[in-house]
């Protein structure tokens, strides 16, 4: 059994549940020391799941909308093994899967989305850069098929997820001379958010299955996580500014 991420420190935001939890499990299984950043106690549950399998992890209470929380999480990661190799900004608003008409979007809903996805990305980048540049590290962010091709149901979610790609492409150019890569994963994952979207709209699951060539949503740990492990690992150092779709063929690069 190889451990491609052995000796690496990885910070994952939003790792208390859903996609972030699966990604944290996959990174830990690949040998990384994982800091599970989550504003809620479910972060401790992710750590327990990792430790039960012999992996190494710690929970840091972290709200990505607060710069101080993110700085503390980065410091916690550095403290554990003396550096930070990879930051994965995965956290999104808890209202991400709430369908909305554009005329009904108010500034509060906008702020819910933007503060987690966009301010969170800004905080992660600022706090992590001094450490990432020391170890030619990686920043990985999450977009969505909605961010790439727009969404009639989730226009605000699409907006911030599209914005994440602009962030990553530009930052990839800015940080390339430092040896730090910035990439984006576009997952289509089976998550609690998706499950709740199904509950709100029972036809969604069947409609999704029709437009996903692989016919199902991806498992966070076994189908999305390995792509993150790849981008975090030795073989991906010359890949930057890219969006890697891990979505069962939902969106095929034009």
């Amino acid at each position, binding site marked *: 059994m190889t451990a491609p991420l052995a000796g690496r420190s990885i910070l994952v935001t939003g790792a208390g549940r859903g996609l972030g939890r699966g990604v944290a499990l996959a990174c830990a299984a690949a040998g990384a020391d994982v800091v599970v950043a989550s504003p809620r106690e479910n972060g401790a549950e992710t750590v327990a799941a990792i430790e039960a399998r012999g992996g190494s992890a710690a929970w840091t209470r972290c709200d990505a909308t607060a710069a101080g929380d993110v700085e503390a999480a980065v410091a916690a990661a550095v403290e554990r093994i003396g550096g930070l190799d990879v930051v994965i900004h995965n956290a999104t608003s808890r209202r991400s899967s709430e369908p909305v008409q*554009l005329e009904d979007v108010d500034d509060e809903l906008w702020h819910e989305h933007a503060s987690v996805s*966009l301010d969170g990305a800004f905080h992660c980048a600022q706090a992590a850069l001094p450490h990432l540049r020391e170890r030619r590290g990686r920043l990985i962010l999450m977009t969505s098929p909605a961010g790439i091709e727009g969404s009639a149901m989730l226009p605000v979610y*699409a*907006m911030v997820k599209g914005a994440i790609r*602009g*962030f990553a492409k*530009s*930052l990839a150019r*800015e940080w390339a001379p430092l040896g730090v890569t910035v990439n984006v994963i576009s997952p289509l994952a089976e998550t609690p958010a998706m499950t709740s979207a199904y509950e709100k709209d029972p036809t969604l699951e069947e409609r999704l299955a029709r437009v996903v060539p692989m016919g199902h949503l991806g498992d966070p740990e076994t189908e999305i996580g390995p792509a993150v492990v790849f981008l975090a690992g030795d073989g991906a150092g010359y890949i930057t500014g890219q969006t890697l779709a891990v979505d069962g063929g939902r969106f095929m690069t034009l």
Partner: protein
Amino acid sequence: MLTGRVVLVTGGGAGIGRAIALGLEDAHATVAVVDGDFASREGTAAAFARARESAGPVDAVVHAYVDPAALTSEPLAETVAANWERRCEAILRAALHCCQAAGQELSARGGRLVLVTPTIALTGAAGLVPYATALEGMRALAKSAARQWGARRITVNCVAPPVELMAPDRDGGPSGLALAGRPLGDPDPRVDVAPVVALLTADGGHLVTGVTIPVDGGIVMAP
């Protein structure tokens, strides 16, 4: 080409917005400029209503507004939170408010919405991370609105000039860009960008929606 059409242009008082407004008038549109910073939804709706009262029922909206502060080049690591907010999120909120106001103006009769999103949205740009972030958000907003409003016969598209044209002092004259290597030469906003906006606003454009058209003389070519 646009005779009898009423087009509102945000940011139409200066820079590329003014150049596009003049270019649309060249194409015989009736153009009204929408002024403001679009920071609040209510203020934005009121500004659109004032423009409509002066020009008549609206056929198309062009969102060309940009806060020139967004064009400030600075490494992200040195960007303070207030500047991130101003160069990224305020730009996105302005776009959202203008889209909402445009949707309100266009919903009864259908119409066209065009967002000006420079090509750094597509390519990324070192030093301009906040603005490029906002621009990709605007493109996703355009695509989402295009999907949501298709049934109302509203099209939503993006026109992408070189980012240099967004600077307020270029003001529609010869651009004077010192960028070598454009296969077709440097674009001028009034002569080269406005006609593409007009194309998306004219009769034949009614099934084109959710797209981004670079108008940059042949630098960015989509896959």
